[in-house]
């Protein structure tokens, strides 16, 4: 999958190896097994960067993988094998979560903030969630600020938390669905002609069309975790600016 120029994802080039490893995990693994449709681990540039322990070298490949998860499989084909912009991914998540966005052109960090705030608010206001006492007792996380402070001191613990919060939120809101995994990356392997040929040959019924449409949807479990992670990477980068340009 090719990288689509995306100024909102340029922040990834400043992430360190550990921060990118976490993002790669969200994009490629599901309970320690590789996602069936990921293509990142077979990318030669990514493999080389992993071997050298410098994922920065492959930040565009990582970004491209996320862009592809955010797009609809079939539409990705017509986009010339490219996924969607990061902004579209975030807006899509907000729409899924019914977050009202009045101005879609506002800076990306504002959109990310709406999303993260919603995840936390929903989880913390949910009485049946077992997650809140766990976050409060084990990690002393009561507010977004607490989470951000944890991110600065213990990246792994923070990554674990956003992963379970985003997952818990999506389980609670949408439940588990057989349609969640996407065909996003599958399309590049099968190719456009094969897909179209399959469609013509099978003579899809309206239900079949709906099924394909649903299966090709963005993978929200993956994008939700990735967006939460990138949002915090952005906050960390902005926090570092003062130190970098200190006079």
């Amino acid at each position: 999958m090719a990288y689509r120029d995306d100024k909102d994802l340029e922040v990834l080039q400043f992430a360190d190896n550990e921060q990118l490893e976490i993002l790669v995990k969200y994009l490629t693994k599901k309970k320690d097994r590789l996602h069936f449709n990921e293509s990142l681990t077979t990318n030669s540039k990514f493999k080389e960067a992993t071997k050298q322990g410098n994922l920065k070298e492959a930040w565009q490949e990582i970004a491209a993988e996320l862009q592809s998860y955010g797009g609809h499989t079939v539409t990705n084909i017509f986009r010339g094998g490219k996924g969607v912009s990061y902004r579209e991914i975030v807006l899509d998540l907000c729409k899924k979560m019914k977050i009202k966005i009045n101005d879609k052109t506002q800076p990306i960090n504002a959109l990310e903030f709406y999303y993260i705030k919603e995840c936390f608010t929903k989880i913390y206001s949910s009485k049946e969630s077992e997650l809140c006492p766990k976050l409060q007792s084990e990690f002393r996380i009561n507010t977004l600020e607490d989470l951000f402070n944890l991110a600065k001191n213990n990246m792994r613990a923070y990554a674990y938390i956003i992963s379970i919060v985003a997952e818990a939120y999506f389980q609670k809101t949408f439940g588990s669905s057989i349609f969640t995994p996407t065909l996003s990356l599958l399309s590049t392997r099968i190719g456009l002609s094969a897909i179209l040929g399959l469609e013509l040959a099978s003579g899809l019924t309206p239900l079949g069309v709906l099924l394909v449409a649903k299966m090709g949807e963005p993978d929200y479990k993956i994008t939700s975790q990735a967006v939460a992670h990138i949002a915090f990477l952005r906050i960390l980068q902005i926090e570092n600016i003062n130190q970098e340009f200190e006079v």
Partner: protein
Amino acid sequence: MIEKIFMFDSSRFSDALKIAIQNGQAIIRDGVAYYRNGGGIIQHMPLKEVTIDLSKSLSTVVSSLQSSIMIASTISTGVIVGAIIIQTAYLSNKINKLHVSINKVEKDVKSLYVMNYITHLSEYAGMIESARCILKNESKAETADLAAILLVNIASKRNELSLLISNLIDYSNELTDDHLMHLLDFIILILELMPKFVYVEAMLSDRYEKFGYTNIMLEQSKKSYKERMKEFSNWCKNKKEDALIGKSHSVFLQKAEELKLFFTDSKKYNYPLLERTDEIWHHSLLT
């Protein structure tokens, strides 16, 4: 490019000089240590020749000199950078680079107002080269009249340079990414050169025993340089933050590492050059 420079050899300091330095009674001007209270010369500073490789970065040259057994470990960064500026082709190379950068920026800058200042900058750099030339001549009597005229002219150009930086920052907001890249390189280069130019001016002023003037000039220049650096730093911070949230030029992301290095190096190599001459030596010899 290998060059030879002379540095102070602290192993040959006289006992009287060592005591005067420790008690804060020594003042060192143009290679001569005097008693601060006007008690005359303590010692002509003993020198030692060392070899440096100018094809390497300033930080590499300084750290290799500091770690070298050829030089007493007490010699500070300010002293070493100062010696390199006055005695080698380092500054000439930088000024050549500045002229190349001016040619690039001239094509991008459409404002006559800004262009006017850039012309003054070019003249200022030429004057600094002349000052270095005078400093190389050991006969004070022969060059005294030239130095006096030059010092007046340099002073007026120095103030214009400070204004140029502010104007360029204001003007840059109107530029596209490609043009901004050139301008950013240009501003970094000016800010790198500014304290070095001031150092040469201070050396020239000291040579002709205008000690009071040197001190006032350095104080003013230090204040002005700090203000410009603060202005540039705030601008970079805002621009990088905007770039990180996708709001403005990605130039600031492409240049992030270079800018970071510039701010770190400035603290190490530029600020010490704006200290009063005797302060530089005292820091060096007392640490």
